[in-house]
């Protein structure tokens, strides 16, 4: 398969796909790679390597743009994020090893099953909140507190099950360059459902981490000549537009609605993974 040459209409389509990634980044802390790669390969006929490379560039752009907009309101848990980044970057560096031991179709089916399971856990916990209303409560070494829009007050949260968060981050990094994703689709549901993080804090912290996670893979694709600047450019510009447009929408949406959106996306991802594993 050859990499398509860039026409104005193709640039516009890639720009639109980047905008969706940017909006998802603002709302849920996802880089959008999990949708961008199948879109570029299945709908536009890009070779997998080229699609994964463009996707990783898009994830980096989403991470930087979203985090630059988010700093200052203390939704991002810097310290916890930097702890988990050790696991994601180590996972990313060792990604090639996983690819050698596990067939891609097995990996995709496994991914699909996990995605479905996590979607149901998220829906089952739709009314459970992780926040502690008392702002003076001890949030521990890695927890945090932030101003919550819904209640209008400062809320705190504690981090639970750190080993699980580290394992999820390692897996997210491990499949990052292989699948062309930042791993937000794995981290955000796990951090919210099992590790005590409120959804908005998990999303903001994930948005910070996916940039560094995707950078490892992007460097390798760039070094091997698979990352074409001309094809990445419209996606990166689309991310700017999407994150700009998505800011107000994401802040107004209720946490419950965001959880439903996340669960729905997980089901779509599961279906996509099963379809890809059959080919």
């Amino acid at each position, binding site marked *: 398969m050859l990499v398509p040459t860039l026409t104005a209409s193709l640039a516009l389509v890639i720009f639109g796909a980047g905008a969706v990634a940017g909006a998802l980044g603002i709302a849920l802390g996802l880089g959008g790679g999990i949708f961008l790669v199948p879109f570029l390969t299945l709908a536009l006929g890009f070779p997998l390597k080229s699609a994964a490379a463009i996707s990783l560039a898009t994830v980096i752009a989403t991470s930087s743009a979203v985090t630059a907009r988010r700093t200052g309101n203390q939704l991002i848990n810097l310290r916890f994020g930097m702890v988990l980044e050790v696991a994601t970057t*180590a996972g990313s*560096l060792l990604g090639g090893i996983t690819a050698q031991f596990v067939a891609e179709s097995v990996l995709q089916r496994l991914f699909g099953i996990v995605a479905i399971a996590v979607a149901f856990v998220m829906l089952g916990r739709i009314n459970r909140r992780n926040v502690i209303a008392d702002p003076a409560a001890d949030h521990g070494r890695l927890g945090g507190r932030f101003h919550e829009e819904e209640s209008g007050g400062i809320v705190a949260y504690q981090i639970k099950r750190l080993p699980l968060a580290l394992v999820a981050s390692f897996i997210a990094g491990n499949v990052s360059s292989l699948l062309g994703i930042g791993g937000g689709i794995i981290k955000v549901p796990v951090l919210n459902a099992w590790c005590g993080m409120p959804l908005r804090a998990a999303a903001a912290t994930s948005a910070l981490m996916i*940039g560094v996670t995707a950078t490892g893979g992007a460097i390798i694709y760039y070094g091997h000549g698979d990352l074409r600047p001309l094809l990445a450019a419209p996606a990166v510009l689309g991310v*700017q537009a999407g994150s700009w447009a998505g800011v107000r929408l994401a802040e107004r949406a209720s946490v419950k609605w965001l959880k439903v959106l996340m669960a729905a996306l997980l089901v779509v991802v599961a279906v996509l993974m099963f379809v890809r594993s059959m080919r």
Partner: protein
Amino acid sequence: MNRDTLRRGPSRSANARLEVMIGEVLRFGTIASSTLLAIGLAMTLARYRSELARVLLEAGLIILIATPAARVVISVIEYIRERDWVFVVLTLVVLAALGGSVVAAYYR
């Protein structure tokens, strides 16, 4: 460092200052890379293909990829200033892993 600092981590103000610095690095990287990519893309689509357009696109992409790494470097420096050695080590490990990717990309 007293016992209270050890248990609770550094002061809120140190953490908030690092957050502001990270925001500035990412904002600069985002604006610089997007501007270069936009000009390069516009020149190419206007069939004004030139060496300049190619250089602008290439520079935009390199700045884009370097931005998260720059954010980690800033964090290392800030944690050294805070004498927060656990986080100096953690951020250095992240930086080393990114360095490993550069090695994997060019020396194989």
